[in-house]
């Protein structure tokens, strides 16, 4: 069995770059893009040799680095570089830009480290479970326990309300049709429509705006549509309802 080389694992290309720069022990702003690029590629090669899967982001970064490196070798005025504007997550315009991004990444790496410490600390502390007082209160005989806190009560109440709503709706529609007379209202609408040259607004058909009247007018209108006497439309969602006579 061959010996095993242990490669450190990096969260992403910036993580790796930061590690490489740190290893050089130089001011980050004075890094040589050539050196960093070489070291970066070397790491990828090592990964390859170990048959490790290389995430695509690492390769994208390698390409970006190579581009930066070769950019220095060509005259800066060259239009050669104004090609594909890749909208990849990694768009790096210059070495400065690269350094800025590595530094920014490093900040959050530190922040993540801080969170890791807090997490470790917190995991060691246990609190009384918040459901416990219920047990406590029940066993204390004098129940302060309040049944309004039972979710089943919510379900029961909602069910009752729904049933009531159902009943009331049926009753309402019944009495309304009785009292106002659907026929009468339909006749009123057709008369109005015939007299009018332009389409009518639904609201103009109403005299009192009571709930009952709105409902009966609406029913009448539906009935007219059903009998192909009227045409009804809205210009937009929730817009006013427009009505006109449907020509035979």
């Amino acid at each position: 069995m061959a010996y095993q080389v242990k490669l450190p694992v990096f969260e992403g290309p910036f993580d790796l770059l930061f590690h490489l720069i740190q290893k050089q022990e130089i001011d980050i702003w004075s890094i040589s893009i050539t050196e960093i690029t070489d070291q970066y590629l070397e790491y990828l090669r090592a990964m390859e040799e170990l048959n490790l899967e290389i995430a695509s982001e690492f390769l994208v970064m390698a390409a970006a680095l190579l581009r930066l490196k070769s950019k220095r070798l060509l005259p800066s005025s060259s239009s050669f570089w104004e090609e594909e504007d890749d909208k990849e997550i990694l768009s790096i315009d210059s070495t400065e830009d690269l350094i800025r991004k590595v530094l920014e990444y490093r900040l959050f790496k530190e922040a993540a480290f801080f969170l890791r410490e807090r997490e470790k600390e917190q995991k060691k502390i246990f609190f009384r479970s918040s459901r416990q007082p219920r047990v406590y209160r029940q066993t204390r005989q004098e129940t302060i326990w309040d049944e309004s806190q039972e979710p089943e009560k919510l379900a029961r109440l909602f069910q009752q309300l729904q049933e009531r709503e159902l009943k009331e709706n049926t009753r309402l529609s019944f009495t309304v049709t009785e009292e106002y007379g659907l026929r009468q209202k339909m006749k009123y609408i057709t008369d109005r429509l015939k007299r009018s040259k332009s389409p009518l607004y639904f609201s103009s058909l109403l005299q009192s705006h009571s709930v009952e009247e709105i409902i009966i007018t609406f029913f009448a209108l539906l009935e007219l549509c059903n009998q192909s006497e009227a045409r009804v439309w809205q210009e937009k969602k929730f817009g006013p309802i427009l009505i006109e006579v449907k020509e035979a």
Partner: protein
Amino acid sequence: MPEQPYKSVIEALLLVAEEPLTPEKISQVVEISKEEVAGLLNELREEYERHSRGIRLYEADEGYKLGTPPELSAYIEKLFSVGASPTLSRAALETLAIIAYRQPITRVEIDAIRGVKGAGVVDTLLKRKLIQVVGRKESPGRPQLYGTTPEFLKYFGLNDIHELPPLEKLQDKE
């Protein structure tokens, strides 16, 4: 495991346990004999009483648990009744039920289901943080939409809104 005074370990276990702890269970966790556990429990009990603390050791269901001294019950009741904890009125519960099962929902829709104008109730629920504004309805006037809060779940001891009891299917509306 680090060396710790066993009495403090037992106290910690009693503090966080969700159910009364039997001496067997304690002995198993702390890895000392049941007799030693019994002795330490006794010491704890006496210390709580001797130093007139706010904690007592109680026996229940063949196990032990921490509770408060009976003579402090007036304070405990006050704690649970002061401020944010008066029980909800029926109107509030009805409204809450509607919001819980129909969220997101507007005031007008709530009123329509209850058949009553419940102006103040929604505000009370908002103030108690049992409901919150979750957006606006794309309808004329863009009325606010209400939904339940994490506080609501806690109040009813739910982990998740889906733990609300399912409703029996009502007949389809005509």
